[in-house]
């Protein structure tokens, strides 16, 4: 997908220089006309699952940030309740998708999903929920709350490749084009 007009693209982005550790870079078009890879926030309380999902996502050429629980994920997004001011928007972080485990101690993936969908700055981010249990009412409840998809663990490479069509795009204003993946 090549941009229609180079000048339009460059006016959409500030140049953020280098990327921070966990923060996203902008959808910067560099000299070779390559767009930044989609940035996925992956949330799972299991260190093994985090390693696996990180590798799966990176091998599909996504940029990955992992969080070990819902609170850390919200902290990353600047959505914790005691934050003085929610100054972060998704234009800063450029999270294209959140993928979260359902069963986590403390805040479940469902609760995290709700918090994201309640946030004016982040509610547009696609959220995928994963679980090792095939529980129909759990699936329904997540989809009703706005999860784009419910995936079963362990995730396969094909599942992860499929995520691309859900990714939120930052390369051009959304009123210009349909997200065709």
């Amino acid at each position, binding site marked *: 997908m090549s941009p229609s007009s180079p000048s339009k693209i460059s006016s959409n982005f500030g140049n953020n220089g280098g990327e921070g550790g966990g923060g996203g870079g902008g959808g910067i078009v560099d000299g070779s006309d390559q767009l930044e890879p989609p940035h996925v926030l992956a949330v799972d309380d299991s260190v*093994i699952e985090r390693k696996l999902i990180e590798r799966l996502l990176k091998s599909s050429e996504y940029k990955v940030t992992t969080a070990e629980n819902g609170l850390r994920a919200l902290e990353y997004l600047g959505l914790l309740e005691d934050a003085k001011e929610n100054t972060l928007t998704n234009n800063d972080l450029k999270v294209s998708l959140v993928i979260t485990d359902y069963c986590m101690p403390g805040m479940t993936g469902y609760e995290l999903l709700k918090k994201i969908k309640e946030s004016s700055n982040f509610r547009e981010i696609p959220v995928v929920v994963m679980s090792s249990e095939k529980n129909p009412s759990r699936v329904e409840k997540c989809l009703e709350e706005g999860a784009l998809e419910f995936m079963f663990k362990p995730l396969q490479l094909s599942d992860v490749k499929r995520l691309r069509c859900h990714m939120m795009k930052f390369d051009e204003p959304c009123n210009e084009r349909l997200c065709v993946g």
Partner: protein
Amino acid sequence: MEVVQLQGRLIEFTSSLFREGFLDDQYTQLQQLQDESNPDFVVEVVSLFFEDSERLLNDLTTTLGQQIVDFKKIDAHVHQLKGSSASIGAQRVKNVCVAFRNFCEEGNREGCLTCLQQVKHEYYLVKNKLETLFKLEQQILQAGGSIPLM
């Protein structure tokens, strides 16, 4: 030992692990995620699995040893173990966890104790097998060979 002999041994040994149900297709998925830029991926994930499992098995032993058994806590631990064993393809361990969770739901202490014994047995078996497999791989690499793709 010659590289070719070692490679033959590895292929035979790995096949037996799949045939005997110690490993399932998920292990193959892990191998496919390993490449030149992530050459130790499988060993790294499996090592995490070993650490995590041993912690869980210790916690399970302690919790089941209490006067009043907290079945919810046990179930939570077994759920974790089931998840991680499924993620690395440790099929037999995963299968015992399924039975284990059923006993938790029933609040059946004896059943749980039996399952704990079984899951420990299966875990140590697969750990042993995987360590042997990794050693074989190391021997091949040290002899200048490459790991055959299965």
